[in-house]
């Protein structure tokens, strides 16, 4: 085992983060040229420089969609990491606390009763996602036993169950030839509807929430300790935890309103990041945000490029996420090996 000085660890992690920023930029720029116009897989630079249709396609469709994918991945990964650390449970994901099921119910409600205009779907998804969060907190306060975390987990499960039974009713009522298809497609997740308007609406919300989480990432470490220890280190543990949770979940509610349900990113990316950077959120949180953005962009590129028709994004992220999870689980001592 090589003796590593702590300064070198910090330096190594900082270099890795800078490297990931460049990878993200490279992936983003490459993805601009990948698509099915003019023919599958690659748009020559020349075409982009000279053809107005190509320019229009890139600037009004691909770039906002790429930005959306980036925000989506960052939010899901950051929220996943925040929830995993605050709940002291590495298999929690952002849909916890009723947010995903709430968004699904809200979107389906809009599809069924408000004529499925995109704007309505997005607004209702966001509203019900936040409602799910609020309900989870409200019910957690009613629970008469257990610590704060257990109560929140329980009420999150309850709210998710209520929302998904409501969703079941809506699906049952939906016209199977039109509305049910739309609901199903929304539940599988996708960014085909992302526009500049979406990006401009969501960017400030996500930026604000993620900045707060990012700045408090050392605090996140402390808040993952037991209540008494976190208290002894001078934190207002419950207040700070609620603040971080609300920030993280609002970011996810915002992106989910556009993307629909995208699973596995929030679960798997924090794990990958901890494997690379260690558990310290000082490095693993920004790492997770960058990896999440890269992963989402790559998955979305596959989703819109692989076949002539769009593949729902959630299918790709679930499939690749599950594959990565298998690899991670079967290579338990990846981290230990890197120290030898």
């Amino acid at each position, binding site marked *: 085992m090589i*003796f*590593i000085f*702590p*300064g070198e*660890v910090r330096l190594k992690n900082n270099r890795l983060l800078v490297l990931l920023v460049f990878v993200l930029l490279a992936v983003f720029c490459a993805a601009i040229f990948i698509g099915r116009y003019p023919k599958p897989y690659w748009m020559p630079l020349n075409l982009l420089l000279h053809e107005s249709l190509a320019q229009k396609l890139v600037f009004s469709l691909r770039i906002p969609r790429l930005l959306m994918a980036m925000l989506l991945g960052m939010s899901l990964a950051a929220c996943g990491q925040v929830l995993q*650390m605050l709940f*002291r*449970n*590495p298999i929690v994901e952002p849909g916890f606390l009723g947010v995903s099921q709430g968004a699904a119910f809200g979107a389906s409600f809009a599809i069924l009763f408000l004529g499925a205009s995109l704007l309505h779907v997005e607004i209702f998804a966001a509203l019900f996602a936040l409602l799910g969060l609020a309900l989870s907190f409200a019910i957690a306060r009613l629970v008469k036993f257990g610590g704060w975390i257990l109560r929140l987990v329980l009420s999150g499960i309850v709210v998710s169950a209520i929302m998904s039974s409501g969703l079941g009713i809506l699906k049952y009522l939906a016209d199977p030839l039109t509305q049910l298809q739309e609901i199903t497609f929304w539940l599988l997740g996708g960014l085909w509807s992302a526009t500049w308007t979406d990006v401009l609406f969501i960017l400030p919300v996500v930026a604000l929430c993620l900045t707060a989480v990012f*700045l*408090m990432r*050392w*605090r996140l*470490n*402390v808040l*993952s*300790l*037991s*209540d*008494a*220890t976190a*208290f*002894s*280190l*001078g*934190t*207002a543990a419950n207040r*700070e935890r609620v603040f971080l949770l609300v920030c993280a979940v609002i970011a996810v509610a915002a992106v989910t309103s556009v993307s629909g349900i995208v699973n596995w990113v929030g679960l798997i990316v924090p794990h990958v990041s*901890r494997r690379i950077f*260690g*558990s*310290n959120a*000082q490095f693993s949180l920004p790492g997770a945000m960058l990896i999440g953005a890269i992963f989402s962009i790559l998955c979305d590129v596959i989703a819109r490029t692989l076949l002539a028709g769009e593949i729902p994004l959630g299918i790709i992220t679930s499939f690749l996420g599950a594959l990565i999870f298998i690899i991670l689980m079967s290579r338990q001592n990846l*981290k*230990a090996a890197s*120290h030898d």
Partner: protein
Amino acid sequence: MIDAPKLTLSNVEFCYAQGAAVLNSLSLDIVPASITAVLGPNGAGKTTLLNTVLGFLKPQSGAVLLDGVNISQYSRSQLSRLIGLVPQAEHIPFNFTVLEYILLGRTPYMGIFSMPQEKDHQAAESMLDLLHIAHIKQRPITELSGGEQQLVLLARALAQQPKILLLDEPTTHLDLGNTVVILNALKDLARRNVTVIFTTHDPQVAIYCADQVVLMKQGHVLSAGRLQEILTSAQLSRLYGVQISVQQVAGRPVVLLPR
């Protein structure tokens, strides 16, 4: 060097929601820069006492005073620079390295948005040296032995530079060698002007290092005072409800269980 503040508990009453009183008009004076062992049967309220001194649990009546000032008057960050806690068997679900974990002890000296700076790293490193665990600083904490883990918990609390250190059964799961290492570290702390209060089930541990002993039963203090005066056959028998004999061997008390 700032003196350790004088810690006083005055008529402290505490009960959990809907429960019977866990601390029952408990009054106590702790000599600054000394070691106090809290002994008592299971459920006597020892951990509750530590959490109340910490300020984590708020007494329903009575007060915990530092130099005569109620700890509820102190801000969180002031308090966290004065009082440190080594909980019993802290479960840490994430694989921090030893150094990262000890750095968490620097949080009271950092702003809510700050990261540890060079001086925090230096403080953490010096705690590693103090407890002779510098060689494990890059090891993940979940892979440590019980003795190493206890030393790391202690180092994290010491990085806080507390004037009062609370430890909940610091030696319970340790072998004799590691027990002595931890207790010697506590003695060293008292010499450095830190007030140490710990709970234990083992009177022999108290005898090894404590200046004062507090005997607790059913939420109140049965007796408290200098070790030699308190750890007697009569007192311990009364405390635990079994016949316990305290003998003097080589000028030190030795606790014998009934046979």
